[in-house]
């Protein structure tokens, strides 16, 4: 039972919707602070940061087939480490802290990759999911119990990030910084997935053993992608802690990890823009539902998610984008044969 692919549409010229969508979102984001009030600027900044985290998951799952339920682990650890550096060592420069956040994400993801993903035997999807979920769970429990990092309270009242002598306050400055990072990472990932490496990733996603037989070192590729995703998640985590003003065990938890999976699935796996859109839509929905139905909103949220999952498992992007464009095709434009070959189903 696979999703239908419109092979018949291959003879028609391909109308790409995604680039227009990306441009529209980018354009709106650039000018928004001029029109929206402070609160929505802050709200969107948070959405950009969570969108960055969602991108990291889309990278590993949508492109490399690694179902990681532990992205929040890198997010939270980066948050904790940068918070500790800022509060214990009094360093608040963004030029130190953000790279540090990325570095923490890299190190932790490599450790987790060695334990869960890499190894002589190829792990099953379920094992990877559970292994990463366990990683997130265990570290959250440990953080909750460790008084040096504040236990359940976490590390409150974080100072603001600084660039030289200027404070990057949450608001317009932080908004553009977060947007800049999001766009930067997005462009890099777009380039990556359209490159030769992207082709290998698509192959791994489809049929790992076959790609191994072609001579690619699949373990290395997976490790690289997981590490890259770790860096991205770490960057997001560092920004999040300083934007919200505190870091707590909730930022490491399996709940957040699962939420990230939801963002991406909701938005549309394997499209990159879907991750960002999914994050934005779910956050907005949660917020509005909570305003309108103060005591019952979690029930409505659960039901709403369920309904969308049932009727649109390909995610929101599926409403706007043909399945062919969503899945992606490789090869030179106008070349009918390669386009057919690459027209396969996502996992």
């Amino acid at each position, binding site marked *: 039972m696979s999703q239908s692919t419109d092979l018949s549409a291959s003879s028609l010229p391909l109308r790409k919707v995604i680039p227009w969508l990306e441009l529209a979102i980018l354009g709106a984001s650039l000018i928004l602070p001029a029109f929206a009030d402070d609160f929505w600027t802050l709200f969107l900044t948070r959405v950009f940061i969570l969108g960055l985290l969602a991108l990291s998951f889309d990278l590993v799952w949508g492109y490399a087939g690694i179902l990681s339920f532990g992205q929040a682990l890198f997010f939270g650890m980066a948050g904790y480490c940068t918070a500790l550096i800022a509060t214990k060592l009094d360093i608040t420069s963004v030029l130190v802290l953000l790279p540090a956040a990325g570095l923490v994400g890299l190190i932790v993801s490599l450790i987790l990759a060695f334990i869960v993903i890499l190894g002589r035997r190829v792990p099953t999807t*379920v094992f990877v999911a559970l292994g990463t979920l*366990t990683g997130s769970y265990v570290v959250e429990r440990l953080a909750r119990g460790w008084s040096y990092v504040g236990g359940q309270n976490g590390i409150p009242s974080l100072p603001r990030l600084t660039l030289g002598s200027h404070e990057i306050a949450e608001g317009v400055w932080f908004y553009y910084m977060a947007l800049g990072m999001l766009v930067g990472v997005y462009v890099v990932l777009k380039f990556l997935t359209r490159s030769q490496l992207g082709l290998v990733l698509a192959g791994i996603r489809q049929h790992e053993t076959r790609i191994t037989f072609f001579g690619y070192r699949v373990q290395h590729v997976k490790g690289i992608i997981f590490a890259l995703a770790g860096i991205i998640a770490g960057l997001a985590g560092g920004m999040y802690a300083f934007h919200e003003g505190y870091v707590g065990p909730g930022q490491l938890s399996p709940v957040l990890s699962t939420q990230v*999976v939801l963002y991406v699935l909701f938005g549309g796996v394997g499209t990159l823009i879907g991750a960002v859109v999914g994050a934005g839509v779910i956050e907005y929905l949660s917020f509005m539902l909570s305003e309108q139905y103060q005591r019952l909103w979690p*029930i409505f949220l659960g039901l709403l998610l369920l309904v969308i999952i049932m009727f649109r498992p390909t995610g929101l992007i599926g409403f706007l984008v043909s399945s062919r464009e969503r899945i992606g095709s490789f090869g030179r434009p106008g070349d009918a044969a390669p386009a057919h070959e690459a027209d396969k189903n996502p996992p």
Partner: protein
Amino acid sequence: MTIIPFFFDVLAYSAIFVLVVLGLGVIASMMGIFNFAHGEFVLLGAYTVYLFHSSGLPVWAGMVAAPFVVGVVGLALERVVIRRFYATPIVAMLGTYAIGLALRETVRSLLSGQFYSVTAPLVGSFSLGEISISRWRTAVILITIAVMVGCYLLLTRTRFGLQVRAALENPALARASGISTSRVYAATFAFGSGLAGLAGGLMVPIYAISADMGVPFLIKSFLAVMLGGMGSFEGAIAGAAFVGATSAALPWAIKPVVADVVVFIIAIAIVKVRPQGLLSKWRN
């Protein structure tokens, strides 16, 4: 003579845990779906008993009703929601997550977010000299053993059981042999949910009921299923016994906070070293 309470402790906790994991394991092995709402099925079983209790009906009647009530709920969910996603188990899992969220929050609302106690059908304890052994927890152990024996007989002595085992071991071959997997899947999901409901009903007198009572079971149960090996009934029991026993035993020796984490690490380590689990029947 702390050895007796120790063993009893381990046995009592493992019994409950086995009931929870058995249901999850059978569903996971059969359909490849880890039911993220499994904790909430446990909760529903507990809630059924609570409803009986608060309407003045006998608690034991609630416990008899719980597996059936939750089994029906599970069946309904399977028919309406889960069945669409057998081809994409990942989406199914997230669907169960959404269901779990909705169920949990609904019960929370019904309970006004509070914790409530339910008296056990058997109150008090046996005293063996200095040691007191809870009567109800003993009953739970005995009931669990009876249920496991019953399941074993069902699976090995009945035709339906044969179909279930076939579908568990090799779904494609089972379909090819003419077994209606759709019906077997539905029955299995109902059965798994029913077991969870029974576990919830039995545990309510021991731990108070609250909307979040199913949550701590979830990840541990997933691990237990993986550890025991997917594809067999015995595997789920083995995994649950191992994880349950370790969870109950370790806090006697090391700090409970650390023990909790160690159980997970041990489980993951074992699965890493032996990916097919302790007792797996799957050929791949």
